[in-house]
């Protein structure tokens, strides 16, 4: 047995930083490693935990992941495992024959995953029909030491030993023996892992050839060679099974029956993306509570819709993300909402299993980076189809709430009437039998108290409805702020970085006559940056002071202020030329913040529409026309697709989801305009042939 060395080339600090970012927790780490086994054509993976409980953890504790896949050669280890940059060179989407599996693992992630699990790893790997297995020894702790060094260190500075060891010819596969385990694994942790691993394979579409995962623990009885197998989904409040038939050319879809106020399964012709099987499980509040009670607060398991192709998970692209908000929402379900109480159904209320096949859905194409599907007509239609199903659930949800409210209202009103009737009856009784006055007195008082509390109940009900609307308003305006906040924080960080570098320069070099001109230049720039920062912060603070008070303001002055002052940093940052021409004075009695929201959202939209334009223009003009004050708002961006002129004002309608468009902007614009009793519409574009023009019109009462 001869020992040799293998090296890595990469900045240690960056490497670890990236590792921590990519592999946020241990579950992800194991998940990634198991996916690699799948890609290596394994049919069986064993995830073994040895002495990992809080009581037992010691230096001999181990996590062992072994598979019967095709193994790695020395060159594989050297050129793929050890080199940081090779994954992009993966030239094919499929694993070698005979399995030809669609790759699910992200190459280059394995080593980060191992790092997350423990400080030391031994890789034993063997290809079939070879006489030796390769054993590589990697000590992450050595890297850790390196990364503490103040100087830039590269992985070349650490050597990993390896050796070839004789092994039976027919043996194959890879075994990762991870030690120096830092974090303990309780049975609950392993249970959480099991639940995640279950998701790799569709419960409704068995894999062929098989891929079996087994969890083994020497400590927990529940995990003695336990095969990972998806459990059926229980405790949902609604459950649907949508199927298709290729010969008869139908696809099932959900439909809201308005007459009967219930969900029905309807048949439509097969969609352009091909037939799909979809199981949907909807959990209302009560169902979620029950689920949580039974599964010990594992509500993260209600996690939205996953797409499986030929039985294997594809989206959310076979990744486990521990932090909910970082989950990739490829279907755009949660982009449509930012709060549970807006009658929208989000990923936290549904479990969906969408099975597609290579054969029946050829137009749904994996993109090469395996982060998503190729954005084509078919995939867009598929996304729309899924959202359409959710919209039906939303109708159901809305109806449920309406029914509940009606019931409560009716009962309150009924109780109110009954109490009144009772009081009347008492009065009549007292009139007819004056001697009963003393006896009836406590009853009368009691009735009065009840009457008051019922009235209070009704008031409370009304108050809550108003509170609901108020909260909705807050959320709506917060959303419009989000984009702005991203811009602002980037601007602030950039400015601070600049100022810091200049200050640092002063600190290190001042005084130096040779550098006088530089010092002078820097001091001006520091001053200017500070003035800029001040402006940005003032504008941010202006939001803090806003409330829903109404006031009188001159639209002409206010528009000029907005376009020539407040928005200038945004225009400058985006290199947008702006024109504002308001001819007539017009006083509006309204909430100023609401009015500003209109333009803020229009501009935010324009920025996206202008992203590919060479010279960018935004124009805003206003004048009196008959009995209306009219504002035309135009840009020369990519414009609005024909036929979309109405749709764009719908909530959650977005054509720029990839740019973070939540489809809320124009909805806010429209609601705000309407709250000012105005109207807004898309009219013929001013900057033909490019661009879009909105006409906003406020009624004018002299």
């Amino acid at each position, binding site marked *: 047995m001869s020992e040799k060395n293998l090296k890595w080339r*990469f*900045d240690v*600090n*960056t490497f670890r*930083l*990236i590792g921590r*970012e*990519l592999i946020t927790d241990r579950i992800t780490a194991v998940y990634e490693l198991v996916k690699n086994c799948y890609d290596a054509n394994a049919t069986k993976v064993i995830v073994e935990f040895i002495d990992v409980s809080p009581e037992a953890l010691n230096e001999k504790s181990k996590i062992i992941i072994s598979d019967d896949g095709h193994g790695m050669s020395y060159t594989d280890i050297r050129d793929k495992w050890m080199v*940081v*940059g*090779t*994954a*992009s*060179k993966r030239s094919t989407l499929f694993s070698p024959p005979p399995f030809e599996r669609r790759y699910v693992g*992200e*190459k*280059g*992630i394995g080593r980060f995953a191992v790092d997350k699990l423990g400080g030391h790893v031994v890789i034993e790997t063997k290809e079939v029909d070879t006489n030796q297995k390769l054993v590589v020894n990697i000590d992450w702790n050595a890297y850790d030491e390196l990364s503490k060094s103040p*100087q*830039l260190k*590269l992985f070349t500075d650490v050597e990993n030993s390896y050796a070839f060891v004789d092994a039976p010819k027919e043996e194959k596969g890879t075994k990762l023996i991870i030690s120096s385990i830092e974090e303990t694994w309780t049975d609950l942790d392993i249970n959480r892992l099991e639940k995640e691993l279950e998701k790799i394979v569709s419960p409704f579409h068995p894999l062929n050839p098989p891929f079996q995962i087994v969890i083994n623990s020497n400590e927990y009885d529940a995990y003695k060679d336990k095969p990972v197998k998806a459990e059926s989904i229980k405790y949902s409040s609604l459950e649907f099974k949508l199927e298709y038939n290729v010969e008869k050319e139908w696809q099932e879809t959900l439909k809201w029956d308005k007459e009967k106020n219930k969900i029905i399964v309807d048949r439509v012709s097969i969609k352009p993306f091909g037939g799909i099987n979809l199981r949907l499980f909807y959990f209302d509040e009560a169902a979620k509570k029950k689920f949580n009670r039974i599964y010990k607060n594992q509500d993260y398991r209600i996690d939205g819709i996953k797409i499986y192709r030929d039985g294997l998970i594809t989206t959310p692209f076979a990744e486990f993300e521990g932090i909910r908000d970082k989950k990739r929402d490829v279907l755009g379900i949660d982009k449509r909402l930012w709060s549970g109480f807006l009658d929208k159904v989000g990923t936290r209320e549904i479990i969906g299993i969408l099975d597609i096949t290579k054969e029946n859905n050829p137009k749904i194409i994996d993109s090469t*980076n395996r*982060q998503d599907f190729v954005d084509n007509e078919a995939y867009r239609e598929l996304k729309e189809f899924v959202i359409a199903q959710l919209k039906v659930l939303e109708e159901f949800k809305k109806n449920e709430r309406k029914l509940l409210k009606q019931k409560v209202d009716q009962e309150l009103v009924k109780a109110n009437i009954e109490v009144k009737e009772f009081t009347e009856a008492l009065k009549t009784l007292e009139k007819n039998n004056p001697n009963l006055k003393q006896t009836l007195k406590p009853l009368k008082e009691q009735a009065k108290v009840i009457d008051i509390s019922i009235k209070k109940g009704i008031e409370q009900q009304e108050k809550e409805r108003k509170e609901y609307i108020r909260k909705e308003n807050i959320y709506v305006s917060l959303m419009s702020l989000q984009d702005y906040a991203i811009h602002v924080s*980037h601007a602030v*960080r*950039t400015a*601070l*970085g*600049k100022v*810091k*570098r*200049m200050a*640092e*320069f002063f600190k290190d070099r001042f005084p130096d006559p040779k550098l006088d001109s*530089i010092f002078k*230049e*820097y001091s001006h*720039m520091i001053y200017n940056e500070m003035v800029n920062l001040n402006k940005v912060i003032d504008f941010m603070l202006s939001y803090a002071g806003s409330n829903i008070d109404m006031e009188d303001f001159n639209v002409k002055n206010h528009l000029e202020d907005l376009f020539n002052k407040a928005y200038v940093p945004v225009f400058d*940052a*985006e*290199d947008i030329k702006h024109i504002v021409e308001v001819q007539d004075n017009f006083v509006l009695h309204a909430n100023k913040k609401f009015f500003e929201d209109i333009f803020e959202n229009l501009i935010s939209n324009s*920025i996206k529409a*202008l*992203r*590919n*334009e*060479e010279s*960018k223009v935004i124009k805003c003009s206003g004048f009196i026309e008959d009995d209306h004050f009219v504002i035309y708002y135009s840009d020369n961006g990519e414009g609005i697709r024909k036929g979309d002129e109405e749709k764009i004002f719908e909530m959650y309608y977005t054509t720029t989801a990839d740019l973070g468009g939540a489809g809320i902007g124009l909805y806010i614009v429209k609601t705000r305009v309407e709250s000012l009793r105005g109207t807004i519409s898309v009219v013929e574009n001013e900057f033909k042939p490019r661009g879009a023009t909105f006409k906003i019109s406020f009624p004018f009462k002299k």
Partner: protein
Amino acid sequence: MEPLKILVIHDDLFENDPLLYTLRERFGRDNVILEKKSSQGLEYIYNNLSSKLIVLLDFDLGAGEPHAPEVFKRIREKTSLIYVIIYTAKQFTAIPNEALIDFINNEALGIIQSTADIPEVVGMVEKAAHQLDTRVDCILEQWIAKHSEKERAKPYLTTKSGTIYTLDDLIVEIRKETELGQQLEKSILQLAIELLTSQKRQLDD
């Protein structure tokens, strides 16, 4: 020999930024180039594929300009010999995972925040420069550079598949990682191993 160039692609730096000033002091006034537009930065790279180049690359590069992952990809389409360091105001956690994976896969040398101290940034660039300097292609280039201009312009070799190369042409081949360039690198390593082992043989004799 051709000096090392540092190309900074960053839309928020200005010509006299202290970082650029310090880099110029260290690497020479004309060897530090600032491009505020990534499209122009790419153009510079494409026109200087045969130069020794380190790129400091911002993440967000302003509206309409290709951002870091795209720029990176386009550099790597042409060469893997240029070292790229990501230098950005963007918080590490705000960089999408896909972009991070792309950075790793395309061998970004490092990622550094624009709020970092200047010496930290310069240190990273120096390390990259050192790495560049000790690489086979650079050693070869240094050797070629020792020849007179006249010698370098003379036809030096013709491959069995065709073209005639001068020593100067060979530098370009190596930098552009053509088949011949890679063959040259390989051959020099083979020679090195040959020499080391024959030395060992002599010692053994």
